[in-house]
């Protein structure tokens, strides 16, 4: 398996506040990798580092090329980032959101998005901001697919959603991974669902990787069980 994304000793800060203190992690092509950890551990910042929203030092290599300098570049190279809080264009229609998702590619391929989210066709002229939270999360996912990404960065897809909707969303992510080989790096507060749906996981604490391994191994780990799984 080829290594699609590799972070080595990545440091990041917002102003004077240092958030990442040397994070190293790797994602193999075709894998789903999850990042767990408490609030403020730097999970979101790790994703933002990959897409270049936050300035970093250290090395971030995607598919043999350096990324992490600008989001535009990451998008062009095939990284689709679904940010925390959905990041849909709320004033624009569902269809316009999808068109924007395909901004970096020559031909917009609506078929793939509609395969996974057929209801989008019926709501195409509705403003994205008027969709429910779950629908917006799905729209954000659909929009990310429009660019035919090689790596999907998913930030807290379960945030504020009902468990049944969270289940549906992870179901779709799993299908994308299994049927289409999409590589996914997902940040989650909900450790249970994240470990259920990933092969490999990293636990971040205070801006450092505290632990990593296969999801099965992490499930068995005493400290992970107590801190994140709650039993």
């Amino acid at each position: 398996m080829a290594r699609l994304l590799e972070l080595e000793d990545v440091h990041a800060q917002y102003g004077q506040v240092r958030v990442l203190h040397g994070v190293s992690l790797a994602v193999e092509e075709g894998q789903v990798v999850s990042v767990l950890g408490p609030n403020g551990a730097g999970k979101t910042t790790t994703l933002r580092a990959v897409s270049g929203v936050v300035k970093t030092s250290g090395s971030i290599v995607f598919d043999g090329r350096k990324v992490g300098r600008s989001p535009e570049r990451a998008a062009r190279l095939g990284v689709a980032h679904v940010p925390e809080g959905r990041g849909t264009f709320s004033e624009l229609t569902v269809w316009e959101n999808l068109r924007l998702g395909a901004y970096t590619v020559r031909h917009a391929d609506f078929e793939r998005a509609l395969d996974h989210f057929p209801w989008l066709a019926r709501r195409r002229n509705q403003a994205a901001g008027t969709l429910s939270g779950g629908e917006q999360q799905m729209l954000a996912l659909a929009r990310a697919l429009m660019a035919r990404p090689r790596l999907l960065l998913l930030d807290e897809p379960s945030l504020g959603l009902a468990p049944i909707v969270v289940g549906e969303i992870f179901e779709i992510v799993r299908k994308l991974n299994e049927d289409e080989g999409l590589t996914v790096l997902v940040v989650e507060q909900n450790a249970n669902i994240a470990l259920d749906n990933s092969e490999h996981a990293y636990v971040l604490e205070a801006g450092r990787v505290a632990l990593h391994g296969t999801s099965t191994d992490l499930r068995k780990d005493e400290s992970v069980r107590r801190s994140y799984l709650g039993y």
Partner: protein
Amino acid sequence: MLFTASDVAQQVVSGLSTGGVYASLALALVLIYRSTGVINFAQGEMATFTTFIAWSLMHHMSYWPAFLLTCLIAFGGGVALERTVIRPVENASVLTIVIVTLGLALVFNGASAWIWGAEVRSFKSPFSTRPIHVAGVAFSIQDLGIIAVSLVLVVLLGLLFRFTKLGLALRAAATNPAESRLVGIRVGWMLALGWGLAAVLGAVSGMMAAPLVFLDPNMMVAILLYAFAAAILGGLDSPIGAVVGGLTFGVALNLISAYWNFVGGTLKLPVGLTVILLVLLVRPQGLLGRRVVRRV
């Protein structure tokens, strides 16, 4: 004072033509306001400057080639201005950017006077001032021409924003810059293109206004105030509002000054200011703007 239907119709049409001038400039203000949250106080002086460029070009070529060339120059100039002057203060406070645009206004005003002199000049109109009679009403061809040019401009912009990928990216960059970058839109360039388009709108409004009010370095000062009034009336964040506001304001101002002797020509400017004040007091979001609700 005449108060016949045909006279009113005539006043309405001539109001629509000045309204078209206000609408174009108001639209320029709205374009920049939507993407940067700042009023470009230099918009009027930029328009005057480009109108002077058109005036110079018209000594070497006929009207419409000069018109198009001026639009191109204005576009390039607007883009260059954003890249060089506005970009460095992009992340500064609103007040800083406002001061920069005020400074730009002075620079352009001074430059116009320095290059072309302060005297008042006549400016060619592509349309004859001859009236045409429709159903007993005399319309001036010039008024109809100005209305047509403004309409064409607005429709072209509407098509750009509504149906092209670039237009969609321009709208996205204006409302959600962070998300736009994540889908690969070069937001910085979109802002620059916005300035370019605004400069073109200003140039057209200047070239349409110049035959009516004559060309001098202060030509657009009053028109910019009316454009402010129009933009605020329509809602500062609504492009359609700017057009509706501009036309409404043009017609209203024309009717008021024609039929209310007390106002006449001299009190037009205070009427503009009164409109701004009243709208801000009664309906701050304007006719078609969105009310911003801040949740704390």
